[in-house]
């Protein structure tokens, strides 16, 4: 919104809380990137650091919520102001969940690095992860710029993440069927893939929130979802 409030301290409060959300988004992007870098480089030290670095994200969410509640109580915002504050709170909750997933990926990394690599799964995960990080980055830019077109585009990009997830799921099933020793690392890699896929969902939810914030209503069309892993099977050749 271009025009400013007559009470300028309201604008300052809003800018501050938006700044905290961006800071949180930056930390979350770094966490996700580091979690996968630790996996690809088999760097358990970096993995441990990612586990520790989740706490500042949680604290930021707490601070955003406290400031948002304060704004609601003291300013009693309506219309676009109300939608901004509600959207910031929801976006912060989504970012916090993404942070949790990054931490979970890092935990599994400490196990995965002790096992032999499973095909090119780690690189596929990295590609999937980069897609999600770009989604988070773009949706936060859209958030700050009130850019509904970019937000809607990010929302649709989640489907691409789902498709990579499907492919990786199938690939890891075949590795497990080929050699039992692949089962343990593959199971962890599957959970990591699922975590990244969920991060994409959260980025898409933030995109929906940006749409609501700008337009006053959620997107009317259903978000395309292509995650088929919950129903996927592979036939075992008995011969």
């Amino acid at each position: 919104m271009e025009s400013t409030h007559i009470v300028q301290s309201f604008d300052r409060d809003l800018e501050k809380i938006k700044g905290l959300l961006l800071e949180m988004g930056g930390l979350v992007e770094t966490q996700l990137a580091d979690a996968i870098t630790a996996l690809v480089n088999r760097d358990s030290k970096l993995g441990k650091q990612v586990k520790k670095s989740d706490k500042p994200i949680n604290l930021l969410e707490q601070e955003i919520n406290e400031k948002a509640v304060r704004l609601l109580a003291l300013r009693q915002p309506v219309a676009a102001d109300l939608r901004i504050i509600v959207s910031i709170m929801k976006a912060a909750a989504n970012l916090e969940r993404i942070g949790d997933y990054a931490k979970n990926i890092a935990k599994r990394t400490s196990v995965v690095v002790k096992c032999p690599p499973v095909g090119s799964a780690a690189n596929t995960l990295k590609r999937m992860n980069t897609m999600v990080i770009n989604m988070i980055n773009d949706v936060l830019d859209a958030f700050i710029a009130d850019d509904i077109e970019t937000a809607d585009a990010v929302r649709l990009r989640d489907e691409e993440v789902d498709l990579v997830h499907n492919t990786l799921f199938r690939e890891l099933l075949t590795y497990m069927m080929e050699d039992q020793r692949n089962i343990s690392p593959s199971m962890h890699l599957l959970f990591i893939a699922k975590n990244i896929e969920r991060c994409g969902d959260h980025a898409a939810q933030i995109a929906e929130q940006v749409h609501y914030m700008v337009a006053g209503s959620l997107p009317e069309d259903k978000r395309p979802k292509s995650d088929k892993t919950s129903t996927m099977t592979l036939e075992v050749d008995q011969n």
Partner: protein
Amino acid sequence: MTLQTFNPEISTEPVIEIKQPVITVKDVNVFYGDKQALKNISLDIPKNKVTSLIGPSGCGKTTFLKCINRMNDLIDICRVEGEILVGGQDIYDPAVDVVALRAHIGMVFQKPNPFPKSIFENVAYGMRIHNLTNSKSELGDRVESALRGAAIWEEVRDRLDQPGTSLSGGQQQRLCIARAIAVEPKIILMDEPASALDPIATAKIEELMDELRKNYAIVIVTHSMQQAARVSQFTAFFHMGELVEHGKTDKIFTSPGDERTQNYITGRIG
């Protein structure tokens, strides 16, 4: 219609949105001398609902309110064009008896203005001049009923003979509401009825409005966005003599359609 009556047929069926408006305003223009105060206002007021009129000072909302019961007649240089239909009858028809009209459309003002008479007489006065009662006991019953309707009976039942002006500001305002509903109006207009009251007295008036709307259509002018949001089901935003936006209150306060509404209710420079 004769000069002695103003008794339009108003359906008692519950209203669904604004399909059966109590008041229909069509293309109303109001001028104070050469200055145009309202421009082409068209608006329907539903019954059993509270409609808030909001907007910056000088936007025409009080002028609009005063048009509804022809209070603007008292201003010599004021000229009203267009139609305001109440129950299908144009209230600016020269045949309309303005006194009967104002009994039909009660008004509560910003500052409580009880008559310098007893609490009882404040409420009984309107019924007397409109010949609404046949006996003293009936008058007493109806005064009690009006005071109960305005949620002040329990506070004044033991001191009905004391001056209305002896009450607190909030009580005086509820006495004025009792006075307005005593003559059995269909519509109650309120011009910032709680702006001079403390939060507790304000809450009582707002609770009363929610109760009163079961029997009346209420139109309220308020400068408090929060009050409009709390008490009304419909909101109309006026700006520089124009009706910018009219719709359901929850829609106006979560996602208004017009940028001017947005700028006003969020406290931005428009």
